[in-house]
C-alpha cells in the first residue's frame, strides 16, 4: 500500500495520529501504545523519567505542554480565568512512524461551511490594555510585553484537510497537527524553541514580522528591519533574553550567536530571526532545560518572570495550547520543541486561534492590533 493511501486510511479509521514537519518532509506518528495526560502532579515525574537508551526510532514521547503547565513548572500561578477545560498537556508513545514527503496529497471529501470568527478583545479594549502596559514599561516593570488576542468560531472541521491546505501555502519548519478522538490541533509554527542533540542545544527566536506586499523580496525585508529601530530593539532584547535562558543550563563561554538577524520568508509575511547555540552543562536534565527555556521568551516579553505575572493578571481567558510547546523527547534524551503559535485548536466544535504582538515603548496600538490580524489571517483564510 502506498503512503498516501495509508494516511487517508488512517485518517478515515478515526485512530489518533500526529504529523510533524521534518527536514525532508513530514513524519507521521501513530499506533499509540500510551497516552499520558499531564497535570501539575505528574508533569515533574514525566519529564524527569529515565528510559533505556535503545535505538528504535519509535523510542520517544511526542505531544505538547500547554501554557498554564509551563507557568506552573516555574512556580507562577495563573489567576482564575475563563476555561474550556482542555488538557494542560498530552504526550503519546508511538509504535509506528511513517515518512511523508512535502507534497503529501489529500483529497477533500466533504463540504465545508464557511464560518465567521469573533475576536475576544476589540480595538478599543486592546488600546486600553496597550496604554496600561506602556505605563508599566515607563516604570521599568517590563521592557517588552505581548498582548494576546483570540479569534473563535463554531465549526466542525476536517483537520487533515486543513493541515494539507495550510502546508501547501505555508510550509513552516515547525508545522504539526494532532488528531485525537475529541480534539485536533493544526499549526504552521515557524519557531523552534529547543533542538537538543547530545550535549548541544540551539534555539531560534523570531522577533519582527512584516507583511509581504507586492514586489517585496528577502533583501527588501532585511532593509526594512535594519532601518526600523523599533523592530531592531525588540529583536535585540529577545536575543539577550534567549542567551540568558541558555546560559542557565549551558557551559560558561559556550553560548554563542550563530546566526544574527536573518530573514525567513512565508506566505503572507517575513520574519526576523536569530539562531543561538550552547553546550549543556553535564549535570543538566531535560526538566531543567524545559524550565529554563519555557515558555519561550519571544512570545512573552522581557524580563520573563515579571512580564508573565503582568500578562496573567490581565488575561481573562486561558491560553490553552497557545505559547506552549509541541515536540518530542527521545528515550536517549534528545529533544525537539517548538513554540505553539499560528495554530488552530479544535475542541468541542469550537475552533480557536490566538495571536500576540508586542508592546515596547515606541510601538503603536493600531499597528500592533493589525499585526495580530496579519498573523491570524493565513489560518482564518482556511475557513473560507
Amino acid at each position, binding site marked *: 500500500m502506498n503512503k498516501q493511501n495509508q494516511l487517508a486510511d488512517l485518517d478515515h479509521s478515526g485512530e489518533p495520529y500526529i504529523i510533524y514537519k521534518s527536514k525532508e518532509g513530514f513524519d507521521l506518528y501513530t499506533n499509540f501504545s500510551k497516552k499520558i495526560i499531564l497535570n501539575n502532579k505528574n508533569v515533574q515525574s514525566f519529564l524527569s523519567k529515565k528510559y533505556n537508551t535503545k535505538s528504535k526510532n519509535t523510542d520517544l514521547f511526542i505531544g505538547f505542554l500547554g501554557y498554564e503547565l509551563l507557568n506552573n513548572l516555574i512556580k507562577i500561578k495563573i489567576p482564575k480565568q475563563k476555561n474550556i477545560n482542555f488538557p494542560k498537556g498530552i504526550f503519546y508513545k508511538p509504535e509506528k512512524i511513517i515518512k511523508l514527503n512535502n507534497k503529501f496529497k489529500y483529497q477533500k471529501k466533504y463540504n465545508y461551511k464557511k464560518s465567521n470568527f469573533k475576536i475576544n478583545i476589540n480595538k478599543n479594549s486592546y488600546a486600553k490594555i496597550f496604554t496600561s502596559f506602556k505605563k508599566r514599561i*515607563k516604570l521599568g516593570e517590563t521592557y517588552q510585553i505581548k498582548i494576546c488576542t483570540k479569534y473563535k468560531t463554531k465549526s466542525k472541521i476536517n483537520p487533515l484537510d486543513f493541515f494539507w491546505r495550510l502546508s501547501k501555502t505555508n510550509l513552516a519548519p515547525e508545522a504539526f497537527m494532532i488528531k485525537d478522538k475529541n480534539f485536533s490541533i493544526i499549526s504552521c509554527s515557524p519557531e523552534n524553541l529547543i533542538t537538543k542533540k547530545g550535549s548541544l542545544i540551539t534555539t531560534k527566536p523570531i522577533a519582527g514580522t512584516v507583511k509581504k506586499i507586492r514586489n517585496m523580496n528577502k533583501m527588501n525585508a532585511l532593509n526594512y528591519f535594519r532601518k526600523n529601530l523599533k523592530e531592531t530593539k525588540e529583536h*535585540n532584547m529577545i536575543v539577550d533574553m534567549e542567551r540568558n535562558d541558555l546560559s542557565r543550563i549551558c557551559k560558561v563561554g559556550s553560548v554563542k550567536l550563530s546566526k544574527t538577524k536573518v530573514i525567513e520568508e512565508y506566505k503572507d509575511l517575513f520574519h526576523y530571526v536569530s539562531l543561538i547555540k550552547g553546550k549543556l552543562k553535564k549535570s543538566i536534565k531535560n526538566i531543567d532545560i524545559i524550565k529554563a527555556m519555557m515558555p519561550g521568551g519571544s512570545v512573552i516579553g522581557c524580563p520573563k518572570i*515579571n512580564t508573565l505575572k503582568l500578562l496573567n493578571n490581565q488575561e481573562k481567558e486561558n491560553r490553552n495550547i497557545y505559547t506552549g510547546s509541541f515536540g518530542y523527547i527521545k528515550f536517549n534524551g534528545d529533544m525537539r520543541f517548538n513554540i505553539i503559535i499560528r495554530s488552530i485548536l479544535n475542541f468541542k466544535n469550537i475552533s480557536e486561534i490566538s495571536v500576540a504582538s508586542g508592546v515596547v515603548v515606541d510601538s503603536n496600538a493600531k499597528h500592533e492590533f493589525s499585526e495580530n490580524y496579519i498573523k491570524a489571517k493565513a489560518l482564518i483564510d482556511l475557513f473560507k
Partner: protein
Amino acid sequence: MIYIIDHKDSFTHNVVHQFSLFDKVECDNYNELKKNKLEKASVIIFSPGPGNPKNYPLTSKIYKKFKGKKKIIGICLGFQQILFCEGAKIVEQKKIYHGFQSNIQVINNKSLFKKGKKFKVGRYHSLKLKEPFKIKDFEITMRCLESKVAMTFENNKDKIYGFQFHPESFLTINGNLLIKKILSA
C-alpha cells in the same frame, strides 16, 4: 568568589557567564540569599532587574552592610540601587532605551579608563539618575554621547562601581575588557 544577587531578570545569567570567565560565581534570587555566601564573597554584584530600587529593600540592606568592606558592582537596576542607597533620586526619562546600542565616552580623569575613550554598549533602562548629583567619593565617569545620561560611576576609594548599560549584552563591544579592569581594580 563573586556573589551575584539576581533581581529575577532575564539578563542575569548572561552576567553570570561573563563574570565566570574571571572567577568562581554564585548566584541566588535577592529574596533567597545565603548568609555564608555573602560573607565568603570577595565581590558582590547587584543584577539588572525590573522596577525601581525602592522595590528592593533587601538589596539596599546588603549594600549598606558591605559598603567599604567588599567590592560592589551594580548593573542597570544595580547601578540605580547603589546610587539610591547613597541618597540619589532615580527618575523616569523621556526617551526610553530598551535593546538600544549607544556610543558612550569616558568624561572624567578619575576613571580607571582613559578619558576620551569611546565604547559601544547595549542599554535596557526606563529610569535614570537625576542630576545634578553630588556624593562624596562617587564620580560619574562615562556618559552617553547623544543624551548625556550617566552611564557609569566609580568610587575607587571604597571599590564600588556601577554600569547603567549592560556589559554582558551582545550589543556591548568589548564588555569583557570593561569587567576585567573593574575586577582587577
